[in-house]
C-alpha cells in the first residue's frame, strides 16, 4: 500500500468570483496527523471541505484541479462514495437531537439505507464508542438522547459517528474551538490513538494545538499553501518568512 493517501495537484477553489484556494499541491501520508493552520480567511477550511466534496453544496462554489485518494480522483467518484471514505467532524458538535446515542453512532448506516443485524449494530456501536474513549461513560445510557452530554462528550460522539462508517481519512474542521479546555484536552488525546487506524487532517485556529497533536503541519496564507513540513521543523525552523511571522504572532 502506497504511503501517501491523499494528494492534491494544482487545486483551486472559488466562491463565484472569489478565489479562496490557490494552486495547492499537498501529499498526505497514511496514518499521520496533519494540522492545517493559518489566519482567518486563508482558505484552510474551504480546502478541507473540498477534500470530502462538501464545498460544492454551496451554491456558486467552483473548483478545479485534482484531489486523489489512493490515486483515485475524487471528482470521478460519486460524492457519496467520497464521503464514505473520508469522514468529517465539524466545529460545533452536532449529534442528531432526536436520536439516542446508540442511533447517533450508527446514523450513517441508516442514512445510507444499509440494513444491519442487531448484533452487528451493537458491535459497531461498541467499537466506535471505545475508539473515542466514550464507551465507559455512556454504555448504560445508550438509549437516551445525546443532548445531556457535555460539549466534549458530544464532539466525541460525533467522532464516533464518523468512525463507525470505517472511513480511511477523518477531516476535522476546528473540532475543539467550541469546547472548554478540559474537553479540548480529551479530544486532543484521541487524535494520537485514532491515527493508528485512520489518517487525520485537522484544521485549527490554534497554533499550539497544531504543534501538540500533529506529525506534519501545513500553513495556509491568503489561499496559498505557503509551507508544509514536519511539525517540528515548521515551528522551530520555518523556511518561509510568512510562516515565521505567523508563528511569532505577528498576525493571527
Amino acid at each position, binding site marked *: 500500500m502506497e504511503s501517501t493517501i491523499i494528494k492534491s495537484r494544482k487545486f483551486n477553489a472559488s466562491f463565484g468570483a472569489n478565489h479562496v484556494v490557490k494552486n495547492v499541491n499537498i501529499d498526505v501520508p497514511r496514518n499521520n496527523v496533519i494540522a492545517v493552520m493559518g489566519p482567518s480567511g486563508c482558505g484552510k477550511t474551504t480546502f478541507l471541505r473540498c477534500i*470530502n466534496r*462538501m464545498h460544492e*453544496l454551496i451554491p456558486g462554489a467552483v473548483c478545479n484541479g485534482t484531489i486523489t485518494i489512493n490515486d483515485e480522483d475524487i471528482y470521478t467518484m460519486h460524492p*457519496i*462514495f467520497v*464521503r*464514505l471514505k473520508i*469522514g*468529517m467532524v*465539524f466545529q*460545533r458538535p*452536532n449529534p*442528531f*437531537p*432526536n436520536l439516542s446515542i446508540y442511533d447517533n453512532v450508527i*446514523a*450513517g448506516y*441508516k*442514512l*445510507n*439505507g444499509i440494513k444491519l443485524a442487531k448484533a452487528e449494530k451493537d458491535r459497531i456501536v461498541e467499537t466506535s464508542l471505545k475508539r473515542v474513549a466514550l464507551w465507559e461513560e455512556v454504555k448504560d445510557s445508550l438509549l437516551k438522547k445525546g443532548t445531556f452530554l457535555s460539549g466534549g462528550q458530544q464532539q466525541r460522539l*460525533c467522532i464516533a*459517528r*464518523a468512525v463507525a*462508517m470505517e472511513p480511511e481519512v477523518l477531516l476535522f474542521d476546528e473540532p475543539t474551538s467550541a469546547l472548554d479546555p478540559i474537553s479540548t484536552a480529551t479530544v486532543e488525546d484521541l487524535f494520537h490513538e485514532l491515527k493508528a487506524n485512520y489518517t487525520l487532517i485537522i484544521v485549527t485556529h490554534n497554533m499550539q494545538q497544531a504543534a501538540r497533536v500533529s506529525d506534519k503541519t501545513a500553513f495556509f496564507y491568503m489561499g496559498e499553501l505557503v509551507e508544509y513540513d514536519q511539525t517540528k521543523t515548521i515551528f522551530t525552523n520555518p523556511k518561509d518568512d510568512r510562516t515565521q511571522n505567523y508563528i511569532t504572532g505577528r498576525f493571527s
Partner: protein
Amino acid sequence: MPTSLPAPAISTPAVRDTVNIRRRIRRAFRQIRTETVFKQALVISGLLLVILVLGILLTLITQSVPSIRLLGFRFIWGSTWNPVKDVYGAFPFLLGTLLTSFLALLISIPFSMAIAIFLGDYYPTGWFASLLKNAVELIAAVPSVIYGFWGLAVLVPMVRGLEVRLGMQQPLGVGIFSASLILSIMIIPYAASLGRSMIQMVPGHLKEAAYGLGATRWEMIRHVVLPYTRSGLFAGILLSLGRALGETMAVTMIIGNSSILPKNLFAPGNTMASVIANEFTEADKTVYLSALIELGLALFLVTVVINIIGKKIIDRLTND
C-alpha cells in the same frame, strides 16, 4: 391641591413666578389624572377581551340548555333530524363534519407538506419561491363564498360526471366528497405556511452532518429535517383541521344539505356548521333553535381546543 385663586392685582416677576408654578402644578396633576385614566383604559380593554370570550361561552351554554335538558344524549346518537316532528338527532351532522374535515385533511396533507418541504428546503429564496409563497397565501385569502360558487359551477359538474362513470344511482354532484374536495383546497395554506417556517428553522449544521455521512438530499430531508420538525408539522396540520371544522359557506353550498345519514362518500349530507347556516332563521321552536345552538357550542369547543393545542405547540417550539 391649589384651586384657582383670584389673579393678584399686582404683576411683578415674583408674583408671575408663583402663578407659573401654580399652573405647572395644576398641569402636572392633570397629566397624572390623564395618565391614570389612560392606564385604566388599557386594563379595561384587556379585560373586555376576556369578558367577551366568557360571554360567548356563557351565551352558547345558556341558549343550549333547553335542548340539553330535553334531549340529553339522544342528541348525539340520534340519526334522525326532523324538527317538524320534534326529533333532533344530530349524529348525521357530526358524521358529516368528521367525514368532510378528515377527508379534506387527508387530501390536502401531501400538497401542504410538499409546499412546506419545497419552500423550506429546496427553494427557500428566489423569485419563484416568492411567487409560490404568495400564491399559497392568496389561497387562504379567497372568500369561502367564492370557493362555494366556483365549486358549484365547476367542481360539482365534474364530480357528477365521475359519479355517472362510477355508475351511481343518483349522480347529484353535490355531496360529502365534493365538499371535502373544495375544503381540502381551502385548508392547504395553514399547514403549508407553518410547515415551511418550521423546516426553514432546521439548523444548517445538522444537515451538514447528514451530508458528511454520505446522505442524499432526500435522505437528509427524511431522516433529519422531518423528524426534527415533527411537532411543528403536526401543529400545522392541527391548524388546518381547525379551519376545516369551522368552515361554513363553501361547504353549505356544495354538500347537498340533506339531514339524512349519508350512506356513502358521494351522498349529500350536512355538517354542524352548514345545518346552522341553513336552518337558523327557520327555527321557530325554542327547542329547535336551542338544538342548533348546542351544535354551535360543540363546534366552538372542538375548534377552540384544537386551535389552542396547535398554538401551544408552536409557542413551545418558537421559544426554545
